[in-house]
């Protein structure tokens, strides 16, 4: 969004820069034409007048200097000549005058023309300037117009973008809202599902707990029954062993332990000393008691026998 706005403003600045450049070019190109052109034409008119007068004066000087003796003869001749000449001269003068006048007239005319031209030129220039100004104005106007248009366009674009942005925002928000709603819905559903699941699990757990409790109760009862039977059996085995355990004459304080293996009939099949008393006679009496007490009163129930009495330790400690 920010990048986009930066892009727009760059384009806008470029547009302004182009217009400014164009305006500068216009302003600078106009004065060169306006200033130099009229000065050149005015100089050319003045030079034409000077050349004509010097030629005339030079001609007069040369006539006066031409020799005195011949002057009269010459003067007569000349006078005639001069007269002819003068006549001619006069003719020429008149012609010259006429020419001069014509020239003057031409000159004036020319000047007039020139002035007129200048006028016209000025007019033209004025017109041109005016035109230029107008053009400039027009250009400026156009520029402004363009600028305005551009601005308007920009504004519009901006507005459009804004609108678009708003719309997008709106759409986004709507989308978000929609998504949120969807999410909420989903979450709600999920919660509901979870709750249901939880309830289901709780129910199951409750049922399982109930079953476990029942089973535990049963197991406990079983275990208690087992424990009673096991303890009872242990007591009976201990009693039977005590009947056969002959401690006569043995030094006090001795203890030994046997690992005894039996078969379901209670018959002792092996008796291994696992903890000797250190006194071979004592150990031997313990082993003999184990053998003589065979068969041991093991429980008839196979399960109890296998679990507890297939292998037992017998600890002889008759000095407590």
């Amino acid at each position, binding site marked *: 969004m920010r990048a986009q706005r930066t892009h727009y403003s760059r384009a806008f600045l470029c547009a302004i820069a182009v217009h400014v450049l164009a305006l500068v070019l216009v302003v600078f190109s106009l004065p060169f034409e306006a200033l130099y052109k009229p000065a050149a034409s005015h100089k050319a008119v003045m030079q034409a007048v000077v050349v004509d007068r010097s030629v005339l004066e030079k001609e007069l000087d040369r006539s006066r200097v031409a020799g005195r003796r011949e002057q009269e003869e010459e003067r007569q001749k000349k006078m005639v000549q001069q007269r002819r000449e003068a006549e001619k001269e006069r003719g020429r003068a008149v012609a010259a005058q006429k020419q001069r006048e014509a020239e003057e007239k031409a000159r004036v005319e020319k000047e007039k023309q020139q002035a007129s031209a200048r006028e016209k030129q000025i007019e033209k220039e004025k017109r041109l300037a005016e035109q230029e100004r107008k053009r400039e104005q027009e250009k400026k106007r156009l520029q402004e117009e363009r600028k305005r248009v551009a601005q308007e366009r920009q504004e519009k674009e901006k507005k459009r973008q804004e609108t678009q942005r708003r719309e997008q925002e709106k759409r986004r928000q709507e989308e978000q809202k929609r998504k949120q709603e969807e999410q909420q819905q989903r979450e709600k559903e999920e919660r509901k599902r979870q709750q249901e699941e939880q309830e289901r699990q709780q129910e199951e757990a409750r049922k399982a707990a109930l079953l476990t409790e029942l089973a535990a109760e049963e197991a406990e009862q079983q275990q208690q029954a087992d424990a009673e039977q*096991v303890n009872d059996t*242990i007591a009976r*085995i*201990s009693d039977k*062993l*005590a*009947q*056969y*355990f*002959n*401690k*006569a*004459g043995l030094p006090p304080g001795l203890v030994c*332990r046997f*690992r005894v*293996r039996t078969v379901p009939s209670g018959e002792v*099949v*092996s008796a*291994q000393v696992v903890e000797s008393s250190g*006194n071979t*006679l004592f150990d*031997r009496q*313990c*082993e*003999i*008691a184990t*053998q*003589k007490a065979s068969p041991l009163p093991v429980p008839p129930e196979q399960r109890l026998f296998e*679990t*507890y*009495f*297939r*292998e*037992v*330790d*017998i*600890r*002889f*400690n*008759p000095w*407590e």
Partner: protein
Amino acid sequence: MGVAVTPIKRNTQTLAFFLALLVSAKAHAVITIEVTKGVESALPIAIVPFASDTQIAAVPVDIAQVVSTDLAGSGRFNTLPSADLPSQPRRFAEIQFDDWRRLGMENLVIGTLAPTASGDYEIEFRVVDTFKATQLAGYQIVSPPDDLRLAAHRIADRIYELLTGEPGAFATRISYVTVAKDTRAKAVYQLQLADADGYNPKTLLESADPILSPAWSPDGRKLAYVSFEGKNLTVYVQHIATGHREAVAAGPGINSAPAWSADGGRLAMTLSRDGNPEIYVLSLAGRRLQRLTDDPAIDTEPAWSPDGRLIAFTSDRGGTPQVYQVAANGGRPERITIGMGPYNARPSFSHDGRLMALVHAEGGSYRIAVLDLGSRGLRVLTDSRLDESPSFAPNGNMIIYATVGSRGTELAAVSVDGNVRQRLGASGGEVREPAWGPLRR
């Protein structure tokens, strides 16, 4: 004597040990059954008659029977009567173990006997554990025919020691005094020496006057006794082997009740040389006499503790006869029998100093009792009317004493637990004051 016991090689049955190794590991802990009680009963033992492999002339002594009687008399063994023997194996391989197990006979003795070229007998015997089917021990003895009883006692000693852990005292001797009437109805007193079971009596001294209080020297070579020869009570010390004797106390008045110190260097006696019967200690080497008691009452019957530090004696200084003890090097006597009735006399220490045998009167009857010196518990061992002169066997297991029986006064022995009492010997007439000799080396 020429009867030596030597070990013979061990015999054993091969056992299937691998079966025991197949024990599988169980999930639960193995239950432990505590046995906190037991019985105190005699050890079952069967002694099979020792026979020869070949046909031989009748053997003068039934060795198995002597061994059996010895062991049974100790109170520690319950012997199987020969009539009840299920079989009579002579060798290990012949034993049917189940037969003996069924009878509860965990101990079985088998043996062979064979005459040697020199006229002796060679005896081999084995002690067998019938439940384990193993031989516990085996020995060989060579014995002259005249010593077969001694050989049997030695066998009994071996078995006793093997199965009880204590030395046997069967191959020991006793001394006692007999009183007989001669053809003119005059009393004849004899100092006798016999096997511990009363067999093979031998007369050491014969006298028309009373002979009293024989006492063994610790080395078993001498006897001290009191003789009333010449109408004077004199204490003699006599060498058993040579018969040579020496009066060690012959002062005026009473010279009586000799008792040897454990080192054999001193004799404690009752002398009245200073007017009243008192306890004295005589140093045999220097003939130095030390008086231990000084009381107007009668002090007599001294006995040494095995460690030689104490002398116990009987005194009526408290009004009735009771047992006192005093330090052997002098001191203040201290009464031992307190609250044990009106009459306790004739003390005698066991070999380990833990027990004291004495004569204890109860309701007019005089009985043999044992006082536990540690717990001060008194146990009466006999139940006759008149028992006297208790003397411990050197292993402390039995007490010999004189008792009044149907035929007069005779010798008897009781196990210290009081369980077994037996009459000794077959002599008629009157038998008095037995003394049990030391272990034979």
